[in-house]
């Protein structure tokens, strides 16, 4: 188990990591999700022992390893920018951690072949990295991390420079490969969809803080606050500032939206409604509320359409099934499915549903 205990990192007067506490279990898959500069890389460097935190402690299986150098820890790291030994063949690159640890020839062959097979590098084993495409170079770096069998595997946006399809496949396979080893697996990404496909647990980061940590789908469905909801939303979360007045959310020019019974305990006053792109529809349904918006542009993916909308000063995105090529400038009614509504209070905290009965 790896534990960060009230860790902060301040350099040149700037706070990169702000009071982070986190416990990562052995054999777990953990996603660090946040935009560029939210602190993902800084946090990983502290986990790896590449940087020492300004405050706080790092514990490995209960032992304080705060000052311990990276070489003394059993850590494998893969970066967005692929790093390989340029003079060695791909085979030797992958084999290098095994050679250092003194593995026998049969083990090296077996492990390298297995990793190469998994990452589709078998045809390139005798080439040097510079004669490979970027994607193949990154797969070499990943293969090396796999054979190392480290207790802590840190992957910093490892697929960002890879083909989309290869990413889709590696995303599905990587957790399986690493989980077999019982290692703690930490994966940093800027992309919500990547976090959802990886599963496991997700920590959302914003400005050096962890805003929420829990099972990935739970963090996605039930964000504790607006920042988490925005971090974990792609397309961006649609927002609508309103005021709660008794049984309704009200706003000038917008039809009243009934407050769901489970949220009736919310005090009257300003609040923000949040809803995802697929909770808006061009068609009315049971429990929907119409909202007027201007169409900016429509993007068609083949099976679905993303309609970019403007509602007063808010930009919204509506995701709808089928092909809808709506002209820019058109004012249309979009229908909000209020069953999946998120409501944030004036401090940006999610208003929790009150359990009825129990």
């Amino acid at each position, binding site marked *: 188990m790896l534990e960060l205990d009230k860790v902060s990192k301040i350099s040149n007067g700037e706070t990169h990591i702000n009071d982070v506490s986190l416990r990562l279990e052995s054999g777990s898959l953990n996603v660090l999700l946040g935009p*560029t500069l939210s602190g993902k890389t800084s946090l990983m460097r502290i986990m790896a022992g590449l940087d020492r935190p300004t405050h706080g402690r790092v514990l490995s299986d209960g032992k304080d390893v705060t000052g311990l150098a990276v070489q003394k820890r059993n850590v494998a790291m893969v970066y967005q920018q692929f790093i390989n030994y340029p003079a060695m063949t791909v085979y030797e690159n992958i084999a290098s951690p095994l050679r250092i640890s003194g593995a026998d020839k049969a083990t090296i062959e077996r492990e390298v072949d297995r990793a190469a097979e998994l990452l589709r590098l078998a045809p390139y084993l005798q080439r040097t990295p510079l004669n490979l*495409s*970027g994607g193949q170079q990154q797969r070499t770096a990943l293969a090396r991390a796999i054979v190392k069998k480290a207790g802590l595997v840190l992957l910093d946006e490892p697929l960002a420079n*890879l083909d989309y*399809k290869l990413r889709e496949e590696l995303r599905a396979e990587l957790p399986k490969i690493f989980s077999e080893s019982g290692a703690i697996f930490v994966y940093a990404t800027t992309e919500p969809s990547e976090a959802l496909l990886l599963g496991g647990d997700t920590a959302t980061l914003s400005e050096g803080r962890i805003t929420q940590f829990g099972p990935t789908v739970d963090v996605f469905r039930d964000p504790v606050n607006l920042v988490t909801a925005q971090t974990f939303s792609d397309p*961006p979360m649609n927002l609508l500032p309103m005021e709660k007045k008794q049984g309704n959310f009200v706003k000038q020019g917008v039809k009243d939206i009934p407050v769901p019974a489970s949220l009736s305990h919310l005090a009257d006053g300003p609040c923000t409604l949040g809803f995802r792109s*697929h909770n808006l529809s061009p068609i009315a349904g049971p429990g929907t509320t119409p909202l007027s918006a201007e169409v900016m542009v429509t993007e068609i993916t*083949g099976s679905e359409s993303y309609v970019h909308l403007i509602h007063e000063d808010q930009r919204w995105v509506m995701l709808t099934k089928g092909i809808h090529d709506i002209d820019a400038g058109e004012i249309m009614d979009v229908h909000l499915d209020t069953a999946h509504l998120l409501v944030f209070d004036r401090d940006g905290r999610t208003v929790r549903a009150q359990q009825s009965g129990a």
Partner: protein
Amino acid sequence: MARIDLDHIRHAYMANPSRDEDYALREVHHSWDDGGAYALLGPSGCGKTTLLNIISGLLTPSEGKILFDGNDVTGLQPEERNIAQVFQFPVVYDTMTVADNLAFPLRNRGMAEAEVQARVAEVLEMIDLVDIAGRKARGLTADLKQKISLGRGLVRADVNAILFDEPLTVIDPHMKWQLRSQLKLLHRRFGHTMVYVTHDQTEALTFADKVVVMYGGEIVQIGTPQELFERPSHTFVGYFIGSPGMNVLPVALDGARAQLGQQTIALPGAASLPDGKRTELGIRPEFVQLGTTGMPVSVRMVEDIGRHKIVRAMIEGHELAIVLDEDLSVPADPHVTFDPAGINIYADDWRVKLGG
């Protein structure tokens, strides 16, 4: 703005190519419309960057010609082709202000200053950089710098084409939405011929009127996003477009019926094929209905990815992916049916037209 003709173009990086495999770009022969928005989509090594470099003039093709509005530009340097280019990483002058960066290509060509100012103001507005127009580019984030690069690509109204080489790679997901929709809007407004290279299907499909899917040095399909989704002309297109990609199942054909193991599937039409072809049925996960009637499947895994679930099942010993709505769940005795409208038949990987 110009029509682009790619006239029997082939390219090999090696000397004396003899076999098809020696070519990084095999025979490309197409005409692209003036004012069209094209995306070149494919995995790394598919030839899309080679093709872009041939269009921009960074590379002279081994064979064939390239024409802009009927004029042969094959031998012309990039700067002689009157094109604008936006690259993967921002190219900006750090010591210049944001506005001067945008003005640079115009002043370079001796445009009158009043006109420069008007044009720059318009572009600043479009890409939402008015607030920082007077700031030096130094110290701006990669996002903002790339926006400047995009703006500079768009600032000249008279270019033959604007070429984009994976321009959103360094951009955070939230900003991608904004920039992509702005590009699309600009294309609608000004009608530039745009060619956009990417390996990201969402970018390609949402940006382009026509997506050019490349695989192994060949163009395997040019089509609208809808065509690529509904009628992939090659199994690679079915696999590469869509997430997860199309299910491709080996079948034996008998007129308007396909035999998948013990299961018989009615086809929307009959296939007539010569013997000896490898035949497969393609069905996208979105066209597979999970219920209690139809063909039995065993469910291996359900991935909850937020707005829907992906069910990983087995049918007659083959993997089958199914997309299931957020609020639905897997029945106790799962069966599937295939929506006939979503069925495509392939022979040796190429789509076969089905007869009435």
